[in-house]
């Protein structure tokens, strides 16, 4: 009943409250068609920081996928252990090959980024680490966070009732395990079993599963809140009066309208997933040697940081860049999709 009053001086209000973002409503409407999605895209492409970050992330991921097979063909056959063992680059340019004769070496034409305390190739290990980070991020965010979060968030917001109550209680419980505590508990107890069953893949699945379990309630809460807001919008009521079923309303109106929120939140959650995987590996609860992960690399080298700082700083810096890029992308997306949140 207050809407009429609000829009009485809608334009004036608009100018005053969000001056930088006034979309003129009385558009002469002769320009080329602008759609909400296209507008967001345009705003995103104007955000240099986010664009640079996106480029860096894409380059890093592509490198981690394309470079290893090439790198494994480059280099001489090494004669090791006084000639008892011959190793081709396809062997020693892998994350796990131990070379006692090239321990803690800096970058060289043989090992482009040098070796660690076991003589393992740092470049290969970093690239494998990036792959692990991205894999965990995809599993945590792509499957559990978005999947469960959207499903339960929409159901709780739209229908309320029991689903809502159960979600709320479950969320309370998960939130009571602060931060990584739940993941530490689960990976600590079941990690060995997972390794025994399926090796580092098993570990990655366990890590992703526990991390996913702790993030999706937050997503569900966002989605629930947004759904509740949307439900107040008259176009939802209008859809009902035109004979749409609840399922149709959810699919046609609710989901498209929460998509931008979900994309933004998911991007920001990727940072979190990358960090958390790093923490677990760092604590020795993630990927186990001879496998590689950025966190594990820090774990392995930090005791020798005084002598060989480079071996620790390299994975730390790569991880920092990765995390920072995703934060910038997420920030840029939020500004692009919801210009109101930015000032």
């Amino acid at each position: 009943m207050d809407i009429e009053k609000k829009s009485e001086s809608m334009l004036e209000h608009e100018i005053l409250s969000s001056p930088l973002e006034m979309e003129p409503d009385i558009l002469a409407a002769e320009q080329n068609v602008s759609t909400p999605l296209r507008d967001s895209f345009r705003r995103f492409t104007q955000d240099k920081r986010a664009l640079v970050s996106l480029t860096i992330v894409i380059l890093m991921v592509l490198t981690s996928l394309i470079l290893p097979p090439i790198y494994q063909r480059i280099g001489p056959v090494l004669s090791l252990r006084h000639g008892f063992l011959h190793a081709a680059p396809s062997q020693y340019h892998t994350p796990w090959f131990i070379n006692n004769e090239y321990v803690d070496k800096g970058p060289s034409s043989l090992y482009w980024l040098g070796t660690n305390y076991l003589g393992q190739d740092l470049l290969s290990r970093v690239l494998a680490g990036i792959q692990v980070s991205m894999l965990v991020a995809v599993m945590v965010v792509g499957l559990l966070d978005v999947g469960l979060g959207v499903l339960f968030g929409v159901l709780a917001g739209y229908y309320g009732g029991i689903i809502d109550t159960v979600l709320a209680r479950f969320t309370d419980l998960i939130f009571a395990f602060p931060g990584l505590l739940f993941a530490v508990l689960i990976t600590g107890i079941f990690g060995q079993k997972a390794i025994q069953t399926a090796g580092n893949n098993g570990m990655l699945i366990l890590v992703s599963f526990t991390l996913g379990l702790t993030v999706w309630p937050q997503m569900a809460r966002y989605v629930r809140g947004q759904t509740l807001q949307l439900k107040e919008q008259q176009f939802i009521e209008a859809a009902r009066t035109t004979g749409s079923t609840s399922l149709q309303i959810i699919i046609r109106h609710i989901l498209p309208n929460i998509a931008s929120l979900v994309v933004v939140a998911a991007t920001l959650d990727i940072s979190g997933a990358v960090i958390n995987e790093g923490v677990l590996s760092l604590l020795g609860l993630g990927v186990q040697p001879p496998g590689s992960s950025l966190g594990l690399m820090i774990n392995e080298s930090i005791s020798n940081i005084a002598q060989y700082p480079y071996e620790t700083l390299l994975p730390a810096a790569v991880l920092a860049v990765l995390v920072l890029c995703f934060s910038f992308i997420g920030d840029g997306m939020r500004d692009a999709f919801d210009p109101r949140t930015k000032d």
Partner: protein
Amino acid sequence: MNNTSENLLEVQDLKVYFPIASGIGTQRGAIKAVDGVNFSMKKGETLGLVGESGCGKSTTGRAILQLLPVTSGKIFFQGENLNSLSLNQIRQRRANMQMIFQDPFSSLDPRYTISQVIAEPLKNFRFGSQKAMQNRISELLELVGMNPAYANRFPHEFSGGQRQRIGIARSLALNPSLVIADEPVSALDVSVQAQVLNLMEDLQKKLSLTFLFIAHNLSVVRHISSRVAVMYLGRIVEMTDSKSLYAMPLHPYTEALLSAIPIPDPVLELKRERIVLKGDLPSPANPPAGCHFHTRCPRAAAMGNPEICRTEAPQLLEKSSNHLAACHFADYAAKKEG
């Protein structure tokens, strides 16, 4: 009055209460948004439902369309009690009763093009081929005075008045017999209000629509309605044809409401005697006993606050021909005027 077959819509003793939850599941009470409303509408007429915010006028409209749970009462639409139908059956009836919404900004999905907005009801009722649907959309846009070439644009490219036209086109897509218009012009600028009001009037004649026109502005209602019902705190206090309502209001609330509306004429304004009501609207969670209006009623005050006003709720009764009022002292007004 009770001839159901003649009436398109008949509302009998409609009550809509909203529970006030107080924490751990217990109910503290209820907001009596609509508290026993009776009226009927003939095919082709426009009934204006007016009142101030919180009087239950919008709730009544939504309850008729079964958009919110009805506490009790019967709603006959085309002779059929809607309250006895299943959800699915109600969905089928929706083709025949539509709504025009108040807010031109939130009533259109920002991610839908104009043609998608209008297509939604058509799709839901399997209108026909893609081509037939496109033709129908163009036809509807022309009907509401919009250029069909705009069909693929998004709502944010249009002004409030234009969006309201789009909303009207959507509501007419399925050729409904009853259209409930909930404050359709109150969010619009004055110079645009008249455009939309005229459009609605024209459409009604052209398509022989039945309008329930909900508004807070009595001067707007006057233009479009043949009959007017005034609501106060969940009840209809007066109902008659619009001519007699404005010429000779019987209920003191109607009187006050009419006199509170400023008229754009300084000479007239100077001469008018204004009845200024004392105090605020009481809470619908806890309405005054007896006549809901007695706490602010100038007539009761003038008569020394008779006890009957405080103890007995007045019935909505026919005081003169086709003029219903819910006031123990409605004749008092008639005498004064007479």
